[in-house]
């Protein structure tokens, strides 16, 4: 059964793709560290502490998460992932977006003209409802549908 959630579009856009769900905080540096050092275009999560994502491919996925955590290089990591083409297609936050993720997607959007579609404030029920591998659609107004 389709489920719909309405969030706040931070960087709006339309997309459809496969969900990748992190129930704990997404540590951007730890997750992308290996992929960036090796400059791999298909980035797999290298965060040993993230049992949901460890070793799973993040590139091109619709990353569903509560927020990002960890090093303040986090925004720079997202910006770099965008330049390499290894970023997720969209980031869907159940919580309000955090300052590190916000900086990263804004810098990529303004300085690289590369956009990760971002919606936040989808609520805790969103992360309870969505599962890795499900198809998700994101609308311009921040409506998220689990197909």
């Amino acid at each position: 059964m389709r489920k719909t959630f309405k969030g706040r579009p931070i960087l709006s856009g339309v997309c459809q793709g496969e969900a990748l769900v992190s129930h704990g905080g997404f540590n951007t540096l730890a997750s992308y560290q290996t992929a960036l050092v090796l400059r791999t275009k298909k980035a797999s999560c290298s965060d040993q502490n993230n049992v949901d994502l460890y070793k799973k491919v993040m590139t091109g996925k619709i990353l569903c998460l509560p927020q990002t955590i960890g090093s303040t290089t986090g925004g720079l990591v997202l910006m770099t992932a965008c330049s390499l083409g290894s970023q997720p297609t969209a980031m869907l936050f159940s919580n309000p977006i955090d300052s590190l993720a916000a900086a990263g997607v804004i810098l990529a959007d303004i300085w690289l003209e590369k956009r990760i579609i971002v919606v936040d404030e989808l609520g805790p029920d969103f992360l309870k409802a969505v599962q890795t591998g499900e198809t998700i659609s994101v609308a311009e107004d921040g409506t998220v549908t689990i197909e």
Partner: protein
Amino acid sequence: MTGTKLKLTSEEQAILNGKGGEVLAKAMRSIVVYGEVFDADCLVDIVGDQHFVTSFGANTIKPYFAMMQELIDAGLKTKNPFTVDPRPIEYESVGVNPIVKMVFSLVFGKQADYEVQLKALGLKNDNAFTCTCYFPEVGNTPGRGDILAWSESSAVVYANSVLGARTNRNSAGIDVLCAILGKAPRFGFLTDSGRQATWKIEVKTSQKPSAQLLGSAIGLKVMEAVPYITGLDKFLGKEMNPEVEAFLKDMGAATASNGAVGLYHVENVTPEARDLGQKLLVPAYKTYVIDDAELKRVYTSYPILWKNLDATPKRIFIGCPHLNRSQLDGWIENISAALKAQGLTRTKMPVALSTPPDIADIYRKDPAVKARLDAMNVSISTICPLMYMNNPLAATDPIATNSNKLRTYSTARFYLDEEILELMVTGTVKAAASVKIGEKA
């Protein structure tokens, strides 16, 4: 984006409209959009020097170097001088074989070029490479209430919590743009309401807890929330001194890396908690009790990424974040005593004690101290151990550390201080030692 309520002055609006040129307008647009996301009401002037996390010329961060060059080419500089995190490599103190060195030169191949960029933008001096810029020897020490736009999670949490300055957890990139403009959007930790605590942490351990372990437990639980910590003043006392500052530094770094804490209050210890006490707690706060069993649970939950769990460490890193003088002296004496107790003169593996260049210089320039440390197999380093572990070859070695931050971001294995000392002199740790969760007296 969002409907904006962010009010700009006429001067700020003019910059946004291009009065200062296209690049400055882009910088202004970045921090305005950033502020709008968090419902900032205005931009406020930064007071004091800045600190940036980005100290490393990693080949992979080309878009960042391009942004820096755009700023430089536009003739822009930061309003005040700034410090940055530690340099990633220092072969004099952390020796490596030629193959590992070659990989370092590939991973950090832009280091020299990047340092030219940093100087062009306003780097304080050649020694301004440390994650603990707030130590008196370094001199980038903000005062209470100062408005900043710092990055480096461990420095942010220290500036907010221990010094009472006001900075959000800014990302690399946005920190530089704020410093160029001399302004930060007012939201979060820059406001009184953003500094209220939503978690009460009750420390009920039988002895002074390990700062690294306590911070980890708090960070994993509260993520980016502000914790108000009770029961710790019993162990720390109520006066600041270098030992208390070191404890708070290491605890904060663990809260920030294991979670995303940017500000904590310690009852009767940190400045705002001393003034306001439990008035800092919001009415509907949550509670987390930390006792010996909880710390043990957290400690035993850490994954170990060594290929051979019984390996003898090839190297030990102490000092992530960088050590203050009190810690440095303490480690030197403790290692010396541990060696003497075993009838040894050298540790089983090289030990690097990382500290800011301004402090390292004091020790390195004393020939007697240097000779003593060399004989013990101990080096005073200014390295960033985390950057060292970014080398894929180096990361395959069994590396041990007492830093929970380094554990979080690398394959380094975490040990408590007493265990690390045991490792240094015996090459192994008895299993029984792992149940002790207190700090070395």
